[in-house]
Every structure is written in structure tokens, then in C-alpha cells.
């Protein structure tokens, strides 16, 4: 990651942590590109792993652990360390070990092209959620509904939708570790 790119992403994350989440989707998209390039390079075809699963799992982890980033530090090493942890963890779940040198991660150029890969793990994790949480997470993610639309559609209060969404996402992240 170039220093300029790091600064751009750091600025976005600082804004998010300060309560301005208007640039959050953009930030996550940029991070997805960075992580996708790493995952595609680190995961060979014979590994039985789908790089896009790693991308999604890393994005979830980054989202749920965003408060652990120190705003006075560059964000690149933090992203690489989380991606590395998630790749190693994915191999571990499949009963294999992998040694990854963190210094390789920084050299990887972000993948620019848009890919439409249907990742399997998150779908299976989504299927494991309670009905209420699954409906909320699907409405917002797959259907692209807003919080208030979802609240109307499901006859819930907006705060309840927010809580369901957050718990659903946390549950998906927790489920990842148990899927094989």
C-alpha cells in the first residue's frame, strides 16, 4: 500500500470512528480490493479455499474490530495483520498449517477489477441464523433495503432492526470459525 493510499484509507476510517460513516462503504470496498489481491495470491487453486470467502471474512472482522485500530498509526499494517490471521485461520480450520510472511502483504497491489464471486461460507453462516436475524441481514444486504424500509417491511422498530443486524453480523463472524 502506498503512503498516499494508506493516508486516504486512514482518513476514511478516522471519520468513521468519529461518527461520520458516509465514506464507510467506499472504505470497505477499497479494503476488499486490497484483501482480494492478497487472498488470490496466497491461496493456491488446490487449497480447497475460496479467496472471496477470505475477503468477506476479513471484511467482517475489520468491521467488528474497527475500534482496535489506533488512529495515530498507519492502517495498512493493521489490515494486513487481520487478513493474515484470517487466512491462517481458514487453513487451520481445514486442518492445515501455512506460514505467511507479513512483509509480502505490503507489496501486493490492489486488485482493481470487480469480481462477482458468490462466496459460500457466509451464505452457510447466514442460513444458520435465527429467522429474525436472517430476514434483517438478507433484506439489508441482498435486497439493499435501508434500515427504515426493513423496519416497515418486517413490522419492527428501527432500533430493533439495528440490533438484529448487528447481532446477525456478529453471529455470522462467530459461525465462520465453526464451519468446515
Amino acid at each position: 500500500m502506498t503512503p498516499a493510499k494508506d493516508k486516504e484509507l486512514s482518513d476514511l476510517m478516522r471519520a468513521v470512528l468519529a461518527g461520520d460513516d458516509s465514506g464507510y462503504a467506499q472504505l470497505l470496498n477499497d479494503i476488499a480490493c486490497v484483501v482480494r489481491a492478497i487472498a488470490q495470491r496466497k491461496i493456491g487453486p488446490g487449497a480447497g479455499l475460496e479467496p472471496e470467502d477470505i475477503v468477506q471474512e476479513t471484511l467482517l472482522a475489520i468491521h467488528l474490530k474497527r475500534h482496535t485500530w489506533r488512529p495515530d498509526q498507519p492502517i495498512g499494517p493493521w489490515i494486513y495483520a487481520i487478513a493474515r490471521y484470517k487466512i491462517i485461520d481458514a487453513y487451520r480450520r481445514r486442518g492445515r498449517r501455512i506460514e505467511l510472511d507479513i512483509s509480502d502483504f505490503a507489496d501486493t497491489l490492489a486488485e482493481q477489477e470487480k469480481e462477482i464471486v458468490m462466496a459460500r461460507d457466509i451464505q452457510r453462516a447466514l442460513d444458520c441464523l435465527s429467522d429474525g436475524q436472517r430476514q434483517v441481514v438478507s433484506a439489508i444486504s441482498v435486497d439493499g433495503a435501508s434500515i427504515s424500509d426493513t423496519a416497515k417491511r418486517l413490522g419492527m422498530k428501527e432500533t430493533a432492526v439495528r440490533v438484529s443486524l448487528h447481532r446477525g453480523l456478529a453471529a455470522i463472524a462467530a459461525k465462520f470459525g465453526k464451519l468446515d
Partner: protein
Amino acid sequence: MRTEDLITALAADASVKKAGLDQVWSVALFGGVAIAGLVFLVGIGPRPDFLAAVQTIRFDFKFVLTLSLAISAFAVLRKTAVPGARIGLPLLLIAPALGLLAVIAELIVLPTNAWAMAAIGKNALYCLTLIPLISIAPVIALTSGLRRGAPTNPTLSGALAGLTAGAIGATLYAAHCTDDSPLFVMIWYPIAVAAVTAAGAVLGRVFARW
């Protein structure tokens, strides 16, 4: 699910605010120390001659050792909860180095025939059981703190939580224990703290994954 869809969901969830790690660690440390202090006061309390003991250098140095270990282990623990942070493991050498210097000084000061008695002491079994007992609350509190962080090596982080908790337990126990010789402190305390460290490593491995 497509990654774009996931990002849509994550962006919709951005308004949920979480406590920063500094706050998490303050709560975990304060809670752990408070309960450990309570266990200490209710269970064993300070030794009867505490005020006289404070005047002696051997007694006071026990706290230099246990507190320097607690502070350095806690500092390293906090680093390991942040992905990509420089950890600074050499900090952990401060307390053992101080302890070794104290042992050398004690060996010079004490006559040879007093070494064995100073090392074996009177309370070794208490030391081995009470330090881990007092450390239970801190190790649980610090491991729960760890769950709010993002340790990329959960076993190592758990061990550091155990080391910090063990050092907190040792600090409190030191106020009760009447064996003050560095020869005693550098044999029995480390065994007790190592047991808590090992327990912390297991707890971290199981509970601090994310």
C-alpha cells in the same frame, strides 16, 4: 452472498459504537484487581507485622519485582490485542533481570549455610496455592478484555493475560507472605505465576479467537 451485498450490510451497521480498547482494558484491569483485592482481604489479609515489614528492603523489593512484572506484562498484553502492532517482548525481561540481581546480592550477603533455609522458607505451599487462587478473577477479567480486542496470536495473548494476572496475585500475596528472601521469591513465586500463565494460554486459545 456477494461481497458488495456484505459491504452494504456492514455499512448499515456502522452506527453501532464500541468502546475503545483503552476503556476495555481499564475496566478489565480495575475489575480484576478489585475482586482479587477483595479475595485477598477476606481470605488471608496482610501479615500481622505489615507496618514493620515495610521498613525492610527485602519485603519492599518483592513488590518491585511483582509490580514491574505486572506492568510490563500488561503493556505487552495490550499491544498483542492490536493487529500489526509492534509487541516489544523484551520488556518482559525487566522483572526477571531485577530478580536475578537480587538473588546475586542475597547470595553475597547471606552466609552459605543460610541459603537453603532462605530458599525453602516456611510458606512455599501457601505461595503455590494462594497466588493462583487470587489470580483467578484477574485472569478471567483480562481474558474477557482480550475478547474485545483482536489478538492475532490468541495463545500468546492469553499467556500474557495469565502472566499479568499471576503478577497481580503475587503482588497481593507478597503482602501476606513472611518469606522475604529473594532466594524464596525467585523460586516459588515464578512457579505459581507460571501456572497462571499456562492457564491463561489455554483460556486465550479457546476464548480469544475471533
